[in-house]
């Protein structure tokens, strides 16, 4: 990398960095997960699907909801220029999330904030937990 070469740099710290870079991969733990990484969670009301897609706008993402799955599709484009280093993944990504619970299709919302996509899928009324009051006779 050209920018790394300075007219004067202290060698030991630079050597340290070489080792540091070998030890720590950008994805962490050397576990190559499918792109983009997803967080799936739920509470009583909704199912949340979150994905880390930095550099992608909400318009670039295509969300398709079928009976049992949510499909997240989009494309990340690489910037133009002469590369010294390219670590950010680019290209088309596609992930299918199985949704096992019936959802209220009309109320599904998606939001993008700081490169994190959040899809909120409200659970259908019939699967929501209900409290049944018992009248003591």
């Amino acid at each position, binding site marked *: 990398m050209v920018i790394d070469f300075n007219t004067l740099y202290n060698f030991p710290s630079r050597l340290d960095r070489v080792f540091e870079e070998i030890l720590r991969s950008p994805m962490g733990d050397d576990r190559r*997960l499918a792109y983009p990484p997803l967080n799936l969670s*739920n509470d009583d009301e909704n199912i949340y699907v979150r994905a880390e897609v930095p550099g992608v706008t909400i318009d670039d993402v295509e969300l398709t909801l079928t009976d049992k799955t949510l499909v997240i599709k989009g494309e990340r484009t690489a910037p133009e*220029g002469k590369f010294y280093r390219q670590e950010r993944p680019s290209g088309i990504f596609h992930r299918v999330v199985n949704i096992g619970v019936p959802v209220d299709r009309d109320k599904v919302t998606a939001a993008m904030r700081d490169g994190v996509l959040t899809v909120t899928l409200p659970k259908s009324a019939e699967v929501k937990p209900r409290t049944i009051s018992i009248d003591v006779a």
Partner: protein
Amino acid sequence: MSEVAKKEEGKELSRFRPATDILEREDGFHIFMDMPGVSKDDMAIDLEEDELTVTGRSAQCPVSGEKFVEAQFGACEYVRSISISDIVDRERIKASLENGVLELFLPKVEKVQPKRITIEAQ
């Protein structure tokens, strides 16, 4: 549960080197760093001597009562240092954060204009 989520239980946030693109264009160097979940306020860029250090904390604010089924990313700290050379104009470095990507623009120092010396005829 993935490794990322397990580490989160400890007090220290897990540290990551953000994926970075470094490229050169006509006007100078452009650096792109993927820092999803980091807002402008949680980011710091320090230039010390010839070392540019970027740190950012990603915030994950789950709704209370949320149960996780799968967690492949979580709150973490991004740290990355880049040495910059003397051809970068330090005064005009620009940074912008958009959609979780930090873009740094490092313009080149304006070249000294070549000067022609005219020879005066005697």
